[in-house]
């Protein structure tokens, strides 16, 4: 059914911490691995070892540079996958009902047996979260690892999306946004979690935590250990002292410090 549910019991999604992400792409690889071996059609590659390799990915990490007016530039690694929007435009455009948003937890999924591969849902998504698999000719997207999070065959610590489980920096968090006391709700409230392209009216569930600003330029700061590194002798003596004075006395200017 491609009409959207008016509300969902849970609102499962991710918090992505742009302050913490180091841009290692481990989430990209673990996502590709898990989703190639499990739910639905595998994520194919075309010409993987050739001159122009391409492939289907459900999660990709961009990198952006921010240049503030009065502060040093920052490099932000920016993982992007399906945001499981409350008002998902990809769902309503689907002519067959293959795209749907689950009433119980808000996950946006594709029933691949019903997908005709028209690509309209990918057109409707502002975030580039959907990719047509070039081998299977069906639309692929993040499932929030629906086959992990409820999977009782897995140890409890593994019952979260593969990208979250694998992140070595702890930059990805999984939880229920409908519960104001959940880890993701609290993180969003404390750190000012934000929506991507709010003007599109998609009401994304996933939130991004902004990078903490670098409050000032620290390049001129004095190290805490600096006092211990100051020269012990103020007057030079011995052979080096004589050489210093002799060189100073020679014509021409000497650059550098007073020592």
């Amino acid at each position, binding site marked *: 059914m*491609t009409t959207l549910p008016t509300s969902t019991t849970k609102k499962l999604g991710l918090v992505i911490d742009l302050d913490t992400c180091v841009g290692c792409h481990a989430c990209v690889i673990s996502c590709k691995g898990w989703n190639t071996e499990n739910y639905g059609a595998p994520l194919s590659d075309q010409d993987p070892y050739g001159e122009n390799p391409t492939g289907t990915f459900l999660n990709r990490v961009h990198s952006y540079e921010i240049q503030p007016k009065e502060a040093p530039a920052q490099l932000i690694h920016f993982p*992007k996958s399906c945001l499981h929007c409350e008002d998902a435009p990809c769902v*309503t455009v689907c002519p067959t009902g293959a795209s749907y948003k689950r009433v119980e937890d808000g996950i946006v999924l594709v029933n691949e047996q019903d*997908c005709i591969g028209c690509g309209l849902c990918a057109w409707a998504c502002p975030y580039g979260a959907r990719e047509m698999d070039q081998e299977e000719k069906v639309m692929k997207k993040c499932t929030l690892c629906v086959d992990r999070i409820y999977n009782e065959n897995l140890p409890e610590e593994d019952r979260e999306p593969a990208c979250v489980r694998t992140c070595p920096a702890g930059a990805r968090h999984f939880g229920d946004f409908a519960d104001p006391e959940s880890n993701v709700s609290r993180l969003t409230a404390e750190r000012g979690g934000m929506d991507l*392209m709010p003007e*599109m009216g998609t009401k994304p569930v996933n939130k*991004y935590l902004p990078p903490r600003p670098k409050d000032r330029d620290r390049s001129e700061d004095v190290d805490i250990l600096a006092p211990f590194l100051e020269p012990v002798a103020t007057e030079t003596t011995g052979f080096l002292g004589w050489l210093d004075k002799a060189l100073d006395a020679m014509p021409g200017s000497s650059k550098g410090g007073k020592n």
Partner: protein
Amino acid sequence: MHPAPSVILFSTLSGLGFGLLAFLGFGMPSPTGFMAFIWFTIAYLLAVGGLIASTFHLGHPERALKAFKQWRSSWLSREGICAVAALLVMALYGAGAVFFDTNWTLVGIVGALLSIGTVFTTSMIYTQIKTVPRWNNLTTPLMFLSICIAGGALLAGQVSLATPLLVLAGVTQIAHWVFGDKALSNSGTTLATATGLGARGEVRAFEPPHTGTNYLLKEFVYVIARKHALKLRVIAIVLMAVLPVLLIITHSHILAALAVLSHLVGVFAARWLFFAEAEHVVGLYYGKR
């Protein structure tokens, strides 16, 4: 957006075919017998040929019948239903004209409205796409509808109607370009809103997520031949509206046939631009806008 030839062919041919069906349905002209057979064959070849072409870009055309299910929310589904309804009703009207030498006026009017409705639903598939600001405005359905009706009038030999309708089609097409050129900047969507980082300073794409290309870049960030866009626009308008208006002044049959051909090629060029010039906001994430 990637200009898929199958989709451009569909919207050009079907637009003209449904335009002709609409005029036949309204009784302009109202042929009977063998002449009716020829008129309806031309209209159905165009409309159905276009519809068949549109299935070529599907990943799984064998599942196309499933696309009739979601008419409550999906314009693509509505288009399918509307097209089939128009073709069935007009087949009934055509059968009356060919086999019984009668024109069932009411059936014709319903069929005509469904034919125009089909082109409207096609246009709404694009108009509803918020992620392509160039399409997401009133000029898109106006342009599709006016071109469909003008083409229909031209092909149906309604010379006195065709001239003002062709001018109108040209005007709406130009309006679509004029509004469209400013649509992305007017939408307010930028790399700053896409990343949410705009308040901190100027955002610049530093490195893409992958070294090669991908589906998103091929489908949504198509830029080839943009440098020829202005020339193509002039060619499209001249062939679509200006030349046909001049060719039908003399009421010559051969020149009228040339006018239809010129119109068809012009619309094809305009539809190619409709896709090739359309900027999808996902390109912002790749620093490509």
